[in-house]
């Protein structure tokens, strides 16, 4: 592993790769900073550019965008009370009051410092945990992979939605989309209606771009143009005393964030919200939270960066993405002909270690680059959405077209853009659909393979210990929300009874 890391270090310092890394960091800053463009969308938009690059440069670009956009969402959250990315929603609670008190520069400094620390801690855990998990997963066979995919899907469905029924409808729909085309096992055409285009299946890139980017543009176009204000702030990085004051909060929130990130289905946004409420609970003066204190900025900012790195662990070690953005990264790997999973450390070791070292540097460079970036940021914000919106649409179209040079795919993207728009209006979570589409082929082929291994005996999933544990975890993730709801129901009923009695 040490040689791998040193090799990754060497790869990163090839001038071209270093240039790409810095470009990725700046793009992540810009995209995260502008409300209406999230990190997920930016990674999607830049997929077409990355097709033509060699894998090392492509993944340095995509992962550094992913890592830094999580931070820069906090800039407009603090200064304008508009989170630039969903991950920065919790930063508004204390960041904006600090800016109102005239401490905007201090809040930005705290955000830079805690994001970088959280991100670096997350990357360190990522570097050490991923190879361990991958070597453990080397013993997995078809039943384990099926159980793993099933667990990922159920956890995403039950946790990301807050509504079990909608979550599982999404998963089933996504998995179904993945079955369209030639069946990989028997070669039977499925649901093609005689169309040659459908024969080769629905590629998941158009589905992703439609669901996440086109649906968002269809929403943004209906909104009033945002006002841009000219606010001059001087970013101040925290001094030693302040660092000491927030170090406990940063440590706890980072650990919580990493843990949440590793779990499939809940990502950086939830991590930020949870760690904010946990920080308030742990604090000696919980009432001060929300009035503009540095701890309230440090907690969500360190947690969301840590969680973003934690979410990379299952992707790189098991090939199972835990969030929407990591699902897109999985798609990018497949486009480059690389199958993420336990074997990747052996077949693509140098690429993986370069990505890991690149993430470490991206997070460290937040400390250096963020300050000068913020001073030019207000100029970038002045570019109106009437210019940015059409460009996003253009990138989506090119990105979709370039995968297979197919105009049919552009149509697929439009259809899913409309589907995504209406589903999101009806509060359907989109992440389960995406994970269904991405994991569909894995889940089905591993299921069929297990059935062949066991001569059509379903008990193969329950007699192998690892697959049994994974399936039990899947079951728990379904039952937990139901049990919790029932207990809450009983609690309120009980309370109601006692008030009537009194």
């Amino acid at each position, binding site marked *: 592993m040490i040689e791998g890391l040193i090799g990754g270090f060497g790869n990163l310092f090839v001038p071209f790769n270093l240039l790409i890394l810095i470009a990725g960091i700046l793009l992540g800053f810009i995209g995260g900073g502008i409300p209406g463009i999230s990190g997920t969308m930016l990674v999607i938009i830049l997929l077409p550019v990355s097709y033509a690059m060699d894998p090392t440069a492509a993944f340095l670009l995509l992962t550094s965008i992913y890592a830094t956009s999580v931070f820069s969402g906090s800039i407009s959250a603090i200064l304008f009370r*508009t989170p630039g990315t969903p991950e920065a929603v919790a930063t508004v609670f204390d960041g904006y009051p600090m800016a109102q008190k005239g401490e905007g520069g201090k809040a930005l400094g705290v955000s830079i410092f805690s994001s970088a620390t959280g991100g670096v801690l997350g990357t360190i855990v990522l570097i050490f945990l991923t190879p361990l998990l991958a070597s453990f997963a080397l013993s997995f066979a078809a039943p384990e992979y099926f159980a793993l995919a099933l667990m990922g899907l159920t956890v995403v469905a039950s946790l990301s939605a807050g509504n079990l029924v909608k979550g599982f409808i999404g998963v089933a729909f996504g998995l179904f989309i993945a079955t369209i085309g030639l069946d990989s096992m028997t070669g039977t055409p*499925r649901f093609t209606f005689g169309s040659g285009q459908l024969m080769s299946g629905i590629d998941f890139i158009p589905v992703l771009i439609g669901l996440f980017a086109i649906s968002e543009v269809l929403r943004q176009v*209906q909104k009033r143009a945002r006002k841009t204000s000219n606010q001059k702030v001087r970013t101040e990085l925290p001094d030693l005393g302040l660092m000491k004051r927030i170090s406990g909060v940063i440590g706890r929130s980072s650990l919580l964030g990493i843990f949440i990130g590793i779990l499939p289905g809940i990502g950086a946004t939830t991590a930020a919200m949870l760690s904010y409420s946990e920080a308030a609970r742990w604090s000696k003066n919980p009432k001060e939270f929300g009035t503009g204190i540095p701890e309230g900025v440090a907690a969500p900012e360190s947690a969301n960066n840590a969680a973003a790195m934690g979410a990379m662990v299952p992707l790189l070690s098991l090939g199972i993405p835990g969030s929407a953005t990591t699902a897109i990264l999985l798609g990018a790997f497949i486009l480059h002909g690389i199958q993420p999973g336990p074997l990747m450390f052996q077949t693509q070791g140098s690429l993986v270690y370069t990505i890991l070292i690149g993430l470490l540097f991206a997070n460290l460079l937040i400390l250096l680059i963020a300050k000068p970036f913020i001073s030019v940021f207000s100029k970038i914000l002045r570019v109106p959405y009437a210019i940015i919106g059409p460009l996003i649409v253009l990138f989506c179209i090119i990105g979709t077209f370039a995968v297979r040079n197919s*105009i049919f795919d552009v149509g697929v993207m439009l259809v899913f853009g409309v589907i995504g728009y*209406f*589903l999101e209006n009806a509060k359907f979570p989109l992440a389960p659909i995406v994970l269904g589409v991405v994991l569909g082929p894995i889940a089905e082929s591993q299921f069929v393979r297990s*059935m062949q291994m066991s001569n059509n005996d379903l008990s193969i999933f329950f007699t192998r210990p690892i697959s049994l544990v994974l399936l039990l975890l899947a079951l728990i993730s379904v039952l937990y929300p139901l049990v919790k709801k029932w207990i*809450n129901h009983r609690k309120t009923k009980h309370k109601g009874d006692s008030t009537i009695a009194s």
Partner: protein
Amino acid sequence: MLLERTISIIMIAFSALFLVQSLQLENRTGGLVGPGTWPAALMILMLVLSIVLLVKTFLKKGVQVKTANEEAEDLANEDDQLVYPKRFFYLLGALIIYTLLLDYVGFIVDTLVFIFVLSLIFGVKHWSRGLLTGILATAGAVVLFPILLNTPFPRGVGIFSTFSLLFY
């Protein structure tokens, strides 16, 4: 609520249709699991859950417990109302027309006009700015993709094809 009901009805129709379709897939493997088994199972799950969702929309009372995620979203959407609902249809219409024309008009002309129209739909301050965006974006895309990265962009037919040969 009405939207949720409509969506669940569409989903019931969708899953019922494809359940029938998957059951019609011939299983020539002789094994328990044929090509239609997996999609059929998925469509049964989706059908059952969509019916549950539909029933729920009729039973639901006004009180709703919001999850942390939803609360966060509400905060993000605050003073962010959708004030131009018509623009949704303009944008969608433009996208559909663009996609249909792409094969006939070719990338350059189609995109230039499309980006210009889009910037008008998005409410650009002055039309000249939109035109400039269209020209620059098209030029940038052509230089980056067909010229530098060798992506075979659609050329269109007849005169458009000849025109595109000037550039890529």
